[in-house]
């Protein structure tokens, strides 16, 4: 799953795969700003066929957190 999430990040944020790590955080790189965040949310929902809740959209503040939230939906 890690690779699928990575692929979504690469596409949505327009960044190189090599800079993605668990520590990658919202607002810490200029490519992941609030505009990019909404695009990222849309791409995640499409790729995994899920609908994220308000709190999860707001909480998804790092790559590690994104993986954690997505797995929660996939297990449900």
């Amino acid at each position, binding site marked *: 799953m890690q690779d699928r999430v990575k692929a979504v990040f690469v596409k*949505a944020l*327009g960044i190189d795969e090599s800079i993605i790590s668990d520590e990658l955080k*919202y607002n810490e790189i*200029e*490519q992941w*700003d*609030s*505009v*990019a*965040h*909404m*695009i990222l*949310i849309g791409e995640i929902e499409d790729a995994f066929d899920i609908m994220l*809740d*308000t709190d999860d*959209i*707001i*909480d998804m*503040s790092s790559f590690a957190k994104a993986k954690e939230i997505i797995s929660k939906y996939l297990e449900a």
Partner: protein
Amino acid sequence: MFELNLGRFKDKTALCEGEKSVSYEELESLCNSFESELPRSKQLVAIQMQNSIDTIVAYLSFLRLNYALICIDATLNESLKDEIYKRYKPNLIYKNSQLSRYSDVKIDIYKNLSLLLSTSGSTGSPKMVKLTKENIYHNTISILKYLPITKRDRTITTLPLYYSYGLSVIHTHLSVGATIVLNSDSIISKEFWESFNLHNITNLNGVPYHYEMLKRIGFLKKEYRKLKFLTQAGGKLNKKLVQEFALWAEKNGSRFYVMYGQSEATARIAYLEPDKIFEKTDSIGRAISGGKLSLKNTNIPYQEDELIYEGKNVMLGYAKDFNELSRGDELHGRLDTGDIGYVDEDGYFYITGRSKRFIKLFGNRINLDEIEQFLNSYYKSIAVIGVDNSIMVVTAHHEEGIKEKLMERYGFHHSALHVKHSESIIFKDNKKVDYQAMIERYL
């Protein structure tokens, strides 16, 4: 007006920023001490606007001293800021809570010129709207006649303060002694919602992009009982969303105001009364008190033409550099809005298009001609077309690095940029580029 006698609201909280808060009395004395060090003669000052107490103190003080202020996006790329400084040669620059001298060139400034706002702040356009204090006062009073803002209200900043709508929120709330929570976080951040709940926000303002995000994060499924009203301006919100937010407001004992304006008219031109929102969903409403909307060459209902606005909030004119700051009023209270629309038989106005080359990109106003001029300094045979949230560069040759240049200079999101290589640029018979035809063919 709002910048004077702040102490009359005594210990009421004026501003909050993080843990800090400042009462109206304290705000008055902060302005007094800030002013005491400054020259009395009229200065041109460039102020990098942040949503902070310091910025508000500096802004109010400069207005009190009757300076002319150039409001700049503090997050703008440095080279774009420099271009503005070079063109306008401000005496002073205020940035990060520090004031420094920039230029000693003596500039001739029209005595009533107070505020310069960029026609496209987020891309650092050096073309500025020139406003007077009179403009600001009249517009603030007109807004307060329809928005039910009281001294018990609390708002939170969702908009930047180099933007006319962002500033109008500050002006109206300070006028009545309300509380402003200065926030810089996005409305999809945890920090924003923590502040929102902590301060029991009563008034929320946003451009269409904010409402799209609110809908996206499930705002409409929740209850916010403290929220007294919401305002929307800065472009046309999709009809379905207008209805959804209006319904939400009705259910929650709140009110949803759809409004229309331009920086050229200080901020506000028209608004739709919330009780007409289901009947006139697509409308921008009617002119604000003291203003008049009409169509350029027709008064027949449903006939399309350019919207004309008249009122005391209409700017003096535009400026492109310091040479144009000495000129007085050129428009005499009449503004050709550049927006195309019509009026219905009840006197409600509707906008159907734009005659100027502006689009909105995730809530920011973008001038396509400026983008094209910038690219023209690197490439030959290039044209820029766009619709909201999408910019397309058409090049006759196969050019490299176009997207990268635009992302670096303007910070655009890559998904909004499209390049069509080796395509022909379409011209009209008079040899002018036919943008409309290209939009139809390529977008």
